[in-house]
């Protein structure tokens, strides 16, 4: 059974925002200077646009985007009908194909990043609160196993850096605890926006492990565990990170 666990070492829970330098924090704090809001703006346009065979926009079913307050805070979520964990990107594409009769939004494209940034923004400031009760607990446990698994040529687990070594310096930055509270983020290293999957994939490649696929069930499990681990921290979407 997985409860919302504190990282090993019982450190206080810290967002990556707290480990970033003052310039990065200043960028995130200013909505007029945070480049992620270029994507939020695109998301807002998409929210209102009628698309697909059904000729519906997101707004036609969901109303004003402000109605989505709280949604991102409880994603990813276990979907009993599909028997797997679904993240926000996957939920958006389900709506697109099944309800709008519209084409899938390409991964890491401006449209998907925009709509997930827009929806995530509606939960900004709310505590992350995913449901890991009942059948979801099995998935979160699998996610935790993956988090603690040593893998790749460097034979490192997520836990080694983000639980045990969090707060220590690695080259120019402090190792964060790895709470994914700001996604999609504007990452200075990417000079652009990206999803949590993009970041996780980069980490796995970084330890020279076989990266998970974007729609792998195990990725959903990992994202669910990460969200449970971050429970209580505020949603920061759209975040800025170095």
């Amino acid at each position, binding site marked *: 059974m997985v409860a919302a666990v504190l990282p090993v070492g019982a450190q206080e829970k810290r967002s990556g925002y707290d480990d970033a330098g003052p310039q990065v924090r200043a960028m995130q704090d200013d909505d*007029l*200077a945070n*480049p992620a*809001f*270029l*994507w939020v*703006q*695109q998301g807002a346009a998409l929210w209102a646009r009628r698309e697909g065979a059904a000729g519906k926009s997101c707004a036609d079913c969901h109303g004003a985007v402000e109605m989505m307050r709280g949604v991102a805070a409880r994603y990813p979520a276990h979907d009993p009908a599909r028997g797997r964990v679904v993240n926000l990107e996957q939920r958006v594409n389900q709506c697109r194909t099944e309800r709008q009769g519209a084409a899938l939004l390409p991964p890491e494209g*401006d449209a998907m990043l925009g709509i997930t940034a827009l929806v995530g923004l509606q939960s900004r400031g709310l505590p992350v609160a995913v449901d890991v009760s009942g059948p979801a607990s099995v998935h979160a446990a699998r996610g935790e196993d993956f988090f603690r698994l040593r893998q790749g040529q460097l034979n490192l687990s997520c836990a080694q850096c983000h639980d045990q070594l969090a707060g220590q310096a690695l080259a120019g930055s402090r190792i964060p605890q790895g709470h994914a509270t700001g996604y999609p983020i*504007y990452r200075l290293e990417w*000079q*652009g926006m990206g999803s949590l999957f993009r970041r996780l994939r980069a980490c796995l490649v970084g330890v020279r492990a076989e990266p998970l696929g974007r729609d792998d069930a195990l990725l959903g499990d990992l994202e669910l565990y990460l969200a449970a681990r971050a429970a209580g921290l505020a949603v920061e979407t759209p975040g800025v990170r170095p």
Partner: protein
Amino acid sequence: MVRPLLNVPREVRAGVAFDVRILIQHPMETGLRRDAMGLVVPQDVINRFECAVDGQEVFSATLHPAISANPYLAFSAKLVRSGTMVLRWVDDHGVEASESVAITVV
């Protein structure tokens, strides 16, 4: 080009400086990176930015690839009479874009 994020007051006091802030989505490709095949990605940056009100210059900039991706500019303007502020920019491919906003001097 994608629409920029522009922040400028629509009503200002005569002779009192006010802030203009703009954020433009653009990769500002330096021409120094290589792609996955090892080929140099050609330079493509916004190289020129101009802000004027009814044809009178407020502020302009010549930008080099050292300006970060998704360029952000904050500068100030001062008007004595109402007018239309036009912000224009162009990149190395000659793609031009602009935003206009009517500003009233109260």
